[in-house]
Every structure is written in C-alpha cells, then in structure tokens.
C-alpha cells in the first residue's frame, strides 16, 4: 500500500528569507511536497495567519519570492491567485524547479478560464494542481478532474485556518467519488480530521496555517509540528 502524502505550505520569505530557507531545508526530507505561497495583492481566501505572513514577507518582488525557493524540495507547488499571475512568472517557476501550480481562485472567480489557464500552465512545462471546494458544482469537479495532472486539491473550509465545523468525511467522499487521480485535502485540518480525510479516500493532506503560525514564534516548535504531522499521516 502507498503511504499517504504530507504537503506543507510555507509563505515565501516568511518569517524572513534566512529562516524560511533554513526551515524549508530542514523539513524537505520529512514532507512529500511543499506548497510555496507567493504573496498576492489581495489574500482573498486566506485566514488571519496567512494574511499576516504575507505582510511579513513584504519587501520582495513576486519574482524574487518565486526564485527564493529555487531547489528547496524535489516537489514544489507554487500557490498564486490568478489575479496576480503574469505569464513570465510561470516560466520563472519552471526554471526555479517548481513542478506544479495551484491557483485557488481559478474555479471560484474565473471558472470560464479553467481550460485556457490549465493549457497555459502546461505549455510552461508545469503541471496543474486544481483547487476545488465543497461549493464546487459536480460539473466543474468533473472538468477539473480531467485537467488535474498533478492533483486535485480540496480546500474543505472557506478560509484557511478558521475552524468552521465541516463534516470532513462527507465532503471528501463526494469528491473522491468523482475523481480517480490524486486527491489532496487541506484548509484548517486538525489531527482527527486528518485521519478522517485520509480514511475517506484522500491521498494526501496539506497543512499551512498551524505551521506558519508556529514558525512565526519558534522554528523548533514548527519542526516538531511537522514531525508530529508526519506521524499522524503515516499512522492512517
């Protein structure tokens, strides 16, 4: 049986360039992939922790933030809103060693641009990680499923890091039934929800806010948290 994947989200340049690089290297062997958040102009679907991290990561251009993560992990996913993405950033992501791109607002605010954007990402030599939510209609889950050659990412809450009550099992099963490829689940999962997500059919889980929040204060604590998450994921 394949082990489930742990994907850790980090905001590029947070809490500062040195700490970010150091932490990313320290966890690179514990995690299966890293999701690197490139500061947007408006953090539309992020909770307070991630929003704050973007402010802290100020002072760099987006291109500098993209390039900062160069070669940090064998599987890096760039996270950017479509509002901010410009064409040559995709090329820079490719040359900086990213494997895939995740665009959370694509199916929320620009569903009509799904095919065109996925094509643009592919032609830059990157894979598509497509973001869906519990609010995504069946027809769009099917369309995204066909185009997601990296994975489908299910953000189970409307905002990162806000613990709204969700029946994780039901939400994951609904998407699992429509998607055969890799399914990653994230957005504010606690330990027991991680277990529910994995046992309901998710192939991997993504964790962001809690790690970013720990990293704000204490790198050692953040490291311990990643190790702990690895154990939880491997225990299912």
């Amino acid at each position, binding site marked *: 049986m394949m082990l489930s994947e742990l994907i850790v989200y980090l905001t590029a340049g947070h809490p500062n360039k040195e700490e970010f690089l150091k932490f990313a290297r320290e966890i690179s062997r514990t995690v299966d992939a890293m999701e690197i958040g490139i500061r947007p102009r408006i953090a539309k679907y992020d909770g307070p922790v991630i929003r704050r991290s973007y402010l802290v990561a100020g002072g760099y251009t987006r291109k500098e933030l993209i390039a900062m993560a160069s070669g940090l992990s064998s599987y890096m996913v760039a996270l950017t809103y479509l509002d901010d993405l410009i064409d040559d950033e995709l090329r820079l992501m490719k040359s900086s060693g990213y494997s895939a791109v995740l665009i959370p607002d694509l199916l929320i605010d620009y569903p009509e641009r799904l095919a065109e954007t996925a094509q643009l990402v592919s032609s830059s030599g990157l894979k598509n990680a497509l973001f869906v939510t519990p609010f995504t209609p069946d027809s769009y889950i099917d369309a995204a499923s066909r185009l997601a050659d990296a994975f489908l990412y299910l953000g189970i809450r*409307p*905002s990162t890091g806000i613990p709204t*009550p969700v029946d994780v099992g*039901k939400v994951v099963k609904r998407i699992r039934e429509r998607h055969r490829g890799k399914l990653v689940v994230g957005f504010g999962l606690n330990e027991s929800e991680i277990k529910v997500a994995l046992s309901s059919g998710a192939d991997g889980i993504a964790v962001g806010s809690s790690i970013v929040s720990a990293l704000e204060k204490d790198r050692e604590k953040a490291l311990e948290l990643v190790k702990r998450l690895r154990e939880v994921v491997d225990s299912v």
Partner: protein
Amino acid sequence: MVEFIPKRWFNIIPKLPKPLPPPRDPEIDRSSIEILNRILPEEVLKHQFTVEEYVDIPSEVVDAYRAFGRPTPLLRATKLEERLSTPARIYFKFEGALPTGSHKLNAAIPQTYYALKEGNSEVVTETGAGQWGAAVALSSSYFGLRSVVFMVRSSYMQKPQRRQLMELYGSTVNPSPSDLTKVGMRELKEGNVSGSLATAMGEAVEYALDRGAKYMVGSVLDVVLMYQSVIGQETIKQLEVLDVEPDVLVGCVGGGSNFAGFTYPIINSFPDKEYVAVGASEIPKFSMGVYRYDYPDSARILPLLKMITLGVDYRPPPIYSGGLRYHGVAPSLSVLITEGVVKAAEVDEREAIEAGRMFARLQGIVPALESAHAVAYVIKRALEAKEKNERINIVFNLSGHGLLELNNYTEVT
C-alpha cells in the same frame, strides 16, 4: 397514499451551472467567519459548509413540520383565471397556511431544534415586520426554549398584532434600538429611535455573543434556503398527483429564501422552465444591483457574500413590504440570475396592492404584501398568455398571508 412531507432537504449548490463563490473575510486581523462559530448552532454551520445535494431531516423536525400543517396546500386560482379570461392555469403553494402565517417557520424549526439539541436554552433574532420573529417565537415555545426578538421600533409601534403574537408564544420582544446592547445604545444616543433591520440584526448578534444565546438566521444564507426546500419538494409531488407539468414558476424575493425553497427542487427536476424572481421596483436590486462581494448586514459583522447587491449602505425607502426591503440577493440565487436560469422582474407597491386586493376578492386569501408582488407578476403573465393564446401552467409561491397587516391594504387607495 403519497407521503408529502419530504424526509430530506435539497441543496442546489452541487448542481449550479457556475461555482458558488464562498463567503470571504473582510479584514486582516478579524475573522467574521470565526464569529459564526460562536453565534450559530454547530449543526446549522455544518450544513452551511458541508455541501451535499440531500441532507436528512431529523425526525423531530419532520414531526414539527407535520404538527404545524405541512404539507401546505397547493391550490388552483380558478376564479382568478376566469376573471382574467386567460387560457393559462394558475396554481399556488400556500405557505400562509402555517400557523405564524408564512414560510419562515420552515427555517425556524430546524435552527431552534439544533440549538436545543446542542444544550442551549435561549435563542435570539431580529425581525422587521414580524414574520421571522413570530416563526422563531413559535418554534422556540414548541421545543421549550426561551426566545428574544429585537423588533425594528417603527414596526413595533405600527404592528402591535405581530408583537402580541410573538409575546403570546412566550417571546421577549424588545423594540430596537434598545438599551440592552452597545449597538442599540449608540443608535439611541444619535437619535435614530425608529431603527432598521440592520441595527436590529446587530443587536441580536451582540446579544448572542455576550449572553451565549444562539442566533437564528432568517434568510440569505444558503443553509436557510436549503431548509426552505420542503416547499418545492412538496409542490413537485402535489403537481404529479394533479398530473400537471409546470411551465412558469414565480415567487417574490427579499433575501431569496421563499423563492429558492419553492423553485430550487423544481429547477433540479425541470431545468428548462421559466423561473421568475419578483422584487420591488422601489428596491431596484435586480435592475440596478451589481454582482460583487458585499456585507449581508450593515453592522458588518457577518462575512462578505458574493451577491447581486445595491450596496450595504443603501437605505431602502419605507414601503409596506418590509420583507422585500433588503439590499442583496442570496448568493446561489445571484448565480442563477447571472447565468440566466432565473429571470428577474420588478413590481411596484401599488401594483402589488391592487393585485393583492383582486386576489383576496376572488380567492379569499389576503396575500402578505411581499407575496402580492408575486401575484401581480402572475396576473401580468397570465394576461400575456391570453394574448399569445398559450395554454400554460403558472405556479407561484404565496409565501404568507396579510391578515395581520390589513391596514397596508386600507391605507393605500
């Protein structure tokens, strides 16, 4: 014998033609989505965020629906057809048959039920004219909860009967603005004594946060629309028994809950029919509104919703149809209108009152003024059918009766 009361609620979100934009947090250091965790019953919030096409209705809630008279009747307005000499047939679902006089009870029952089940003893809400407040008052007394209602002071003074009905059900009714909350005291200090729905909402939310009471939501949120889906599901079965396939479906829109509850299950079964959402011309959200993220409440406490809106600071003129005086349209209904699945229309209050009078004289039922907007559109559409000689079936939702606001009919001549 067909069992008419549905056992599941229907949620249209998985079937929408375009993705529904989720609620969004407005600020960096405060999360309105987090505030929902503290004021709503957990199960209600879970229903809001766990999207499934069908959700089982707890048997206690089905029992309450039955006890209060569900299924409501589906009637044919034969005398109105005759008077209009239209080839169209006109049917209506009569939600005014519920004891508090409107569809609002459908959403109050589950919310009070979950509040009780989660160990709460008190619920709180706001009301304008009093339809929502009365629904919360009755379902609270049915389940044995205390209820507190902040009622817009101008209605509190002008509509004593609705206040008395809430008090009869055991509710504590406070005129808003009140001195029970900071929001209220601020308004009183500034001399805004007559109040508004937004202020009353702010007071109810503050009361819930301070006293640990659960806040009951009357419209707009997707979960409320889902709780109303019993209306349309019953209608489908009732039409089946009559062997009638609907062609045109009509309802009035304040926040969108009765319209959605009535039409969404039907849209799911008959996607290509003519669906018409009727608003008030005096609150021109369909003709002048913009589809964007906006606050649902002017206290700006709840998260931003993407909807057709006149802007949260828009001040609706003082028309009698209190239930239609709202700046926005529920997010899922906004998607359906933007995508052209649902057509929008506007009717002014004079037309609504005339249509309501005509309906009362021919069919006996006095429509609530909100519902009379739907009646006015139906009459227009039936006359159009006459011109085109269309033998169509028009079905509309008569969301409530107007017996406690008869002065609305007599004051306008």
